[in-house]
């Protein structure tokens, strides 16, 4: 796995082999594997497609991963809103069991494995691995503090646990088939393999596309006839959210300095337009954002950027589990401000006000990454489209001032009349 260079497909892009190597194998406790199928990030729909269209790929990947890690019991934690997926997976597991790919003494190897499908109850936070574990244990999905509750040591039922994304586990099958080194030839160095990109928003052909990681640029994904097929006619690109709704927004026309190696192998900085960013983990990280769950949301010039952010922030305010103070209170506060701003009650100062609220949430102040997830969109939208927020607030203020002044003028007219 380490040779393959496979990086987690859930969002953080952490090395899968390294993750497996952290598992405490000397505790004497059983090791569990959990497939994280709680795909909830707005804009992301890759795992659902895999489970609907090719459930056996996932199950095969899981069986191999379990065998490799001496796991006897594995779970698929599937999002509550995907009842169809759960049905399909259960049917596939039944089929696999009938063929003795699962169950006791698999294919005569003496190895036993059971996989259970567990349906969530519809909370975004269950996609956070320790929140997922709590939920699987039947509790409220409050993410656990790390340290000490690293899943690899104290995971499900306080036993060593591996939590991997659906797409990551599917890749395991191909790594075993191709060999790690061969797999690593796919994609680009340190960004190996293929990824499914969920493309949504204002493109002609929204959908999901599998690419070799880093072999396509954002421009290709948006405009190539094999991918997005370009924006709607007569529209200009305004912004892209490149890796699921929590990733930082990219503004059309932004330029970044990317590290590249020149002909002599020396590291140089190359100015790159945002559309020419190769779609991989490292390039987007250099652009200050992330490829996250590889969900690209495209926004053209018809989008009211304030409303777009208000929409996102409503989601995060609703989904904060409420465990840590900054995220619990900050996510709703930001949403209230944005709803006020979109409903004509804004102030020109709200852009700064909102920025200060958002600054109090991320940067390790919360137990899980939700704090970052809810504040990054606000911070990045404000950083790149602040003028629109200020203009909206100022327009609201002007309108209200006029409304207050209007009755006074009316009175003066009446007085003059008498």
């Amino acid at each position, binding site marked *: 796995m380490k040779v393959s260079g496979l990086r987690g497909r859930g969002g953080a892009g952490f090395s899968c082999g390294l993750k497996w190597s952290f598992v405490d194998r000397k505790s004497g406790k059983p090791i569990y594997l959990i497939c994280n199928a709680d795909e909830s990030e707005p804009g992301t729909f890759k795992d659902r497609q895999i489970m609907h269209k090719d459930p056996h790929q996932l199950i095969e990947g899981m069986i191999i991963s379990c065998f490799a890690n001496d796991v006897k019991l594995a779970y698929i934690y599937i999002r509550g809103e995907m009842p169809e997926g759960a049905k399909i997976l259960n049917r596939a597991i039944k089929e696999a069991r009938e063929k003795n790919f699962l169950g006791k003494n698999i294919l005569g190897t003496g190895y036993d494995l059971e996989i259970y499908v567990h349906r969530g109850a519809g909370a975004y936070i269950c996609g956070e691995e320790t929140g997922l574990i709590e939920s699987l244990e039947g509790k409220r999905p409050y993410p656990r*503090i790390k340290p000490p509750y690293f899943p690899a040591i104290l995971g499900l039922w306080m036993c060593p646990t591996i939590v991997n994304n659906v797409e990551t586990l599917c890749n395991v099958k191909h790594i075993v088939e191709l060999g790690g080194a061969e797999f690593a030839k796919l994609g680009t160095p340190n960004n190996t393999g293929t990824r499914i990109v969920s493309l949504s928003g204002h493109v002609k052909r929204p959908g999901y596309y599998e690419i070799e990681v880093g072999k396509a640029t954002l421009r290709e994904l948006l405009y190539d006839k094999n991918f997005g097929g370009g924006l709607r006619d007569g529209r200009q690109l305004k912004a892209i959210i490149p890796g699921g709704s929590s990733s930082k927004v990219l503004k059309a026309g932004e330029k970044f300095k990317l590290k590249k190696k020149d002909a002599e192998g020396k590291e140089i900085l190359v100015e790159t337009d945002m559309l020419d960013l190769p779609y991989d983990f490292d390039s987007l990280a250099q652009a200050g954002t992330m490829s996250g769950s590889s969900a690209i949301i495209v926004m053209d010039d018809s989008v009211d950027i304030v409303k777009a952010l208000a929409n996102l922030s409503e989601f995060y*305010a609703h989904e904060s589990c409420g465990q840590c103070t900054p995220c619990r209170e*900050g996510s709703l506060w930001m949403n209230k401000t944005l709803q006020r701003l979109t409903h004509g009650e804004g102030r020109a100062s709200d852009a700064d006000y909102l920025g200060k609220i958002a600054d*109090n949430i991320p*940067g390790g102040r919360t137990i899980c990454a939700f704090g970052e997830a809810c504040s990054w969109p606000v911070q990045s939208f404000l950083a790149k489209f602040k003028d629109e927020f200020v203009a909206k607030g100022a327009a609201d203020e002007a309108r209200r001032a006029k409304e207050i002044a209007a009755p006074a003028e009316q009175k003066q007219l009446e007085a003059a009349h008498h």
Partner: protein
Amino acid sequence: MSTAATTETKPAPTAIEKIKVKVDGREIEVPRLTADWSGKLTPTTMIQACELAKTDVPHYCWHPKLPVVGNCRMCLVEFGTPAMGPDRKPVMNPDGTPKIAKSPRPAISCATPISPGMEIYTKTPAVKQMREGVLESLLINHPLDCPICDQAGECKLQEYSVDYGQSASRFVEAKVHKPKAVDLGPRIMLDAERCILCTRCIRFTRDIAGDDALGIINRGSYNTIATFPGMPFDNNYTLNTVDVCPVGALTSKDFRFQMRAWFLKETKSVCTSCATGCNVLIGSREEKIYRYTPRDNDAVNASWMCDAGRLNYKWIGRADRLKDVLVRGQKSTWAAALNEISDKLKKATAGSVAIIASARQTNEELWLLSKLKAKLGAVSDSIARIGAEDKLLVCADKNPNINGARLTGMCFTEAGINLAQIANGIEQGKIKTLIVFGENLVKHGVSAKALSEKETVSEVVEQHGLTAELLAKLDTLIVSDILPNETTRLAHYVLPGCAHAEKRGTFTNTDGRVQKFMKAVEAPGDARAEWEFLHDLVHNVTGQNGFVTIEGLFNQMAKEVPAFNGLTWSALGDTGVTVQI
């Protein structure tokens, strides 16, 4: 349920390795391991190291006796660890000190273990800014109703607002509204708007009381503490949640709206409702008791006490308290009554006096009675009180000081086995004088015939042959008590005594821990601390002149009673000393 909560944290048999860390630039040595909430040794955390360094780290959800959850984020600190080179060797500064790599992210000090050479920074601008951010978040939806909140004055939100709060709020949105005055159970009220969702109450009742009764409903900022539908929060430890609640969300129905916390005088005392002897603080104002709250003592009650014990204080302020010295029903004076009694006792023949002491009396009082007993050759006993027990704090023995009665020789290992002998002595006219302290004998008195049909000793102990008819045969019945009862009405001499909250003294709890308690309020009327008038009585009858201060009395007792040898009043400290029983 934790058994460790009530057992003493023993010093580790082998010395725990010490490691050096720096707190705000000051190097201190701290043990690598520290007892966690359950008493188990776990890696020392930053907040524990900071405590040892006498550096305050503000916190809401962390409580030394509860599992760590790290959700309030108030205790975030910055830190650094010795930098490691690629060769896994520490990198040195030019001056030879180890180079410290500061962590880019803060850490919660309540859950992050320390490591050798770690530097913890609690006073940096970034830490201050994080604390301000957390506090602002906690306050935006808070009702800010301190003027009508019972927690005001002992509220962590108020305290940290002084340190990290803003004078004006920039919050212009509508606040989240949640249920107020929610009846959680028979003794607890919840104001969900004041709640900061630290989950201390949930953890207490789940992990300490063993009753998983509380949880959180809803999501995000709308989170609310709740019970299961139709299931009131009702166990014998619910009021501890009011103590652990850092804000005014959980309030005691008994105490709410009764008294501002800052008016209360706090007196160190001991609960008398059972033999556990939980350490308490009595909150009183102008000679009236308003509440008991538990006082930390890891050898006895950790930080907790039961609801029954906590609410068992109202009798002290009852209007019908015995306030007058009565001689044959007539109001008298202490001097007159004590002189009469002394004269009678001096003339009494050996064996004609019996003493029934109470295991609710203090060690000192029992010891003084034992002097009378010795001089008069009296037979003595005490009355057992047996009830239900639980696994946490409540002891089956409902007397606070049966061990004191035993150690001073006022009763045998099983209290009450001499009662039949006393009853017989009265019946046969051998015993003419009976001295009774704090016991309503008539309450459990049944006729000797009915008693003989009892099968077990414990039944006999609970009920005895000392009936009203029998007491009427006595020449002299001397009774000291606090509240009037059938026995005081029969008495020739009534000596009004003091509740423990009105005097000083010591009790010996069920484990043999000798604990002292202080005086919180004045006794009503002529009521006098028993040890004071017993001292006079012993002086009159035996000619021995003991000490007239409680300190001297205790120290003298400690010299004469073998079990207490070596103790002194001052050495008992606030949390007592365990003796061999």
